[in-house]
């Protein structure tokens, strides 16, 4: 059984994919998502084998969404686009799976056949953004998108991953590892990432250092990351 998600901001477009999948008994639709943030949540939770993802979506597009996923839980992706010359060219060049709207059923079936023979995710790195400009976040049940440049630090604890900005904090489903790789945030502690731009003071302590951010928050720096941080900031 192949377990899949359908991600598109237009309800009828999602319905169309679901309708086409109804004829394939070996494919199960776990959920439909109307935007990238919902999708991220569902992917983390449901760990699907396959996603159908529209490229053009509000705030965080399909490419950015995939760039945010952990390599371990990366599903096989089939892109869907109405009109995006550059993306289509890139898909063709890399033999990635994609469908054009309105979706042609024959092509849809061919794509599914290809996926069935090898469900392993393709190496999408060449077409994905290297850095994330926005981070999908939530506080309570409200979704929001935070500009990466506004982040001061990110902390991980048993409650999840918390993104702190000057004016408050929210939560994200992104992992620290992805955040460390795809943003300019610096790992200063097992549980912390800090933005070098947000550092106001560093106080050396027994265990490493304490950083004070511009908004006055304290962030611990463990000894193993201190040297690198000092180098990054220009201290020898």
């Amino acid at each position, binding site marked *: 059984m192949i377990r899949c998600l359908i991600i598109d*901001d237009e309800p*009828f*477009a999602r319905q169309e994919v679901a309708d086409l999948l109804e004829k394939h008994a070996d494919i199960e639709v776990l959920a439909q998502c109307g935007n990238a943030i919902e999708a991220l949540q569902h992917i983390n939770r449901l760990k699907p084998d396959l996603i159908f993802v529209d490229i053009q979506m*509000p*705030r965080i597009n399909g490419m950015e969404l995939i760039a945010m996923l952990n390599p371990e839980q990366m599903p096989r992706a089939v892109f869907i686009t*109405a009109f995006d010359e550059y993306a289509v060219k890139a898909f063709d060049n890399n033999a990635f799976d994609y469908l*054009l*709207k*309105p979706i042609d059923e024959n092509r849809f079936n061919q794509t599914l056949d290809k996926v069935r023979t090898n469900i392993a995710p393709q190496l999408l790195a060449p077409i994905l953004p290297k850095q994330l400009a926005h981070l999908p976040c939530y506080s309570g049940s409200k979704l929001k998108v935070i500009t990466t440049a506004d982040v001061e630090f990110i902390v991980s604890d048993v409650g999840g991953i918390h993104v702190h900005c000057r004016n408050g904090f929210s939560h994200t489903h992104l992992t620290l590892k992805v955040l460390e790789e795809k943003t300019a945030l610096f790992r200063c502690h097992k549980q912390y990432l800090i933005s070098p731009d947000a550092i106001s003071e560093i106080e050396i302590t027994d265990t490493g250092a304490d950083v004070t951010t511009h908004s006055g928050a304290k962030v611990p720096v463990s000894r193993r990351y201190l040297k690198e941080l000092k180098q990054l900031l220009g201290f020898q």
Partner: protein
Amino acid sequence: MSLILLLTQQMCVYLVIVYLVSKTPLFKFFAEGSKRLPHKVFIYVVFSLFCIMATYFGEQTTGAIANTRAMGAVLGGLLGGPVTGFFVGLTGGLHRYSMGGFTDIACAISTTLEGLSAGLVSYYLKKAGQSESVYTPSKVFMLTFCAELMQMSLILLFAKPFDQAWALVYVIAPPMLLINSLGAAMFMSIVRDQKAMFDKLSSSFSTNALKIAERSVGILSKGFNEESSQKVAKIIIEETRVGAVAITDCHKLLAFIGIGADHHLPNTPISSQITLDAIAQNKVMFADGVDTTYACSISNHCNLGSSLVIPLRSNDEVVGTIKLYEPKNKLFLNINRTLGEGIARLLSNQILYGRFEQQKSLLMQAEIKLLHAQVNPHFLFNALNTIGAIISRDPPMAKKLIKQLSQFLRINLTRTTGLVTLGDELEHIDAYLAIEHARFIDKLNVSITIPTIYHHHKMPAFTLQPLIENAVKHGTSLMLDEGVIKVNAKVEGNDLLLSVTDNAGLYQPSINTEGLGMNLVHKRLQNLFGEHYGIEVHSQADEFTCVSVRIPLEEATL
């Protein structure tokens, strides 16, 4: 008594000389107080000669000379300033001294002083900003009179024996005082009149030229054709009062007004050789009817006797001619020749400007057309995809959507770039929104509140619709929550303000690609209605973006 007559005679000689000089270019040396050296030298030479001649022609009276030397010295000082005046007086005085006689010293000193004092008076008048009063005859009269009084006093003071001097002064004082003063005053009067005539002539020339420029402005820039040429020809003939005015393009007569209009008919081919030559050689041609004969090429009975043909140029390329005629019994005034060439230059500039404007507007029309024909492909394919999804579930709904999509496309592809009513524009918007509603369902909420009284208001096609499309494309479609778009109309003074407000607040002036489309709408509104009108954007990040269109409430201007 005979002394008066003799001195009058002398004075008359001077006045005749002045009159003659006033007809030559040298006259400007008299008429304007230049500070330049050549001017000073000229004044010095002329008035020193006056002084010397005055002494020569003067009447020998009991060992002294009755003369009009004072006139020369005073005028030299007035026109040349203190230094020149001093030298004129000194030259005249030294010359007088060389002639001898018992008043030689007194005369020499007084002539020098006369020149100097007149110069000082002129200097102070100029400083006081009254340089024109140097030319006032009454003032000149008074000044010369005083100068002569001084001379008489000096003769009485210095000439010995006093008895003889007294006898002399008794005889020569009245005629010399009178004639010198009168002569200087009349001299200045001639200068002043001549100057005034000059000013009047050139000011009437400038007035004429300015009037033509003012009246004809903008006529030819709307197009160089029969209609505009007629208007311009009419203005030229009214302002210059020449016999006839014609305007041609390179092949045919566009307008003819004045004498001979009965047989010089517009829209007939150019027949006169002189016009063809002017076009071929790109040169001003003039047949004055005296040296170069002018004969009408159409009718033997034509009364026109002289003609000036000036090419009209657009970027150095001849596009036509303008022709001024005078009848056989009238002289072609030089002033009209110069004016004619000026008019041609003026009209040429206007034609060039007109072509430039025309091309600019053509380009803009093409841009607009291109922009409108460009249906956003993303929108189109998504719409088709939506219809495809709906078709099996809800065939009537799908059918309706196809109809609305077709309507939207038809308007985009066929609508002209001209004016439409607000109602038409709203129809276009409805077709567009029907599709977007189907795509986004409850995520898009649009409310249009425009009173029906404005539905007949005219505006350029594609003014409002692109703004709504932008609000969806760059605004609400990028929101995670529900997108709300409000379209309103309100009256502000004499303007109608149509506004499109979305709740996304994602407007970024420089980054958005919508800039091109919005700029074009803005420019077109400004071109059509004026600088005051166009598009205004207010936005607050993450709160709202409000784009409003300002157009005149009164449609009279359209």
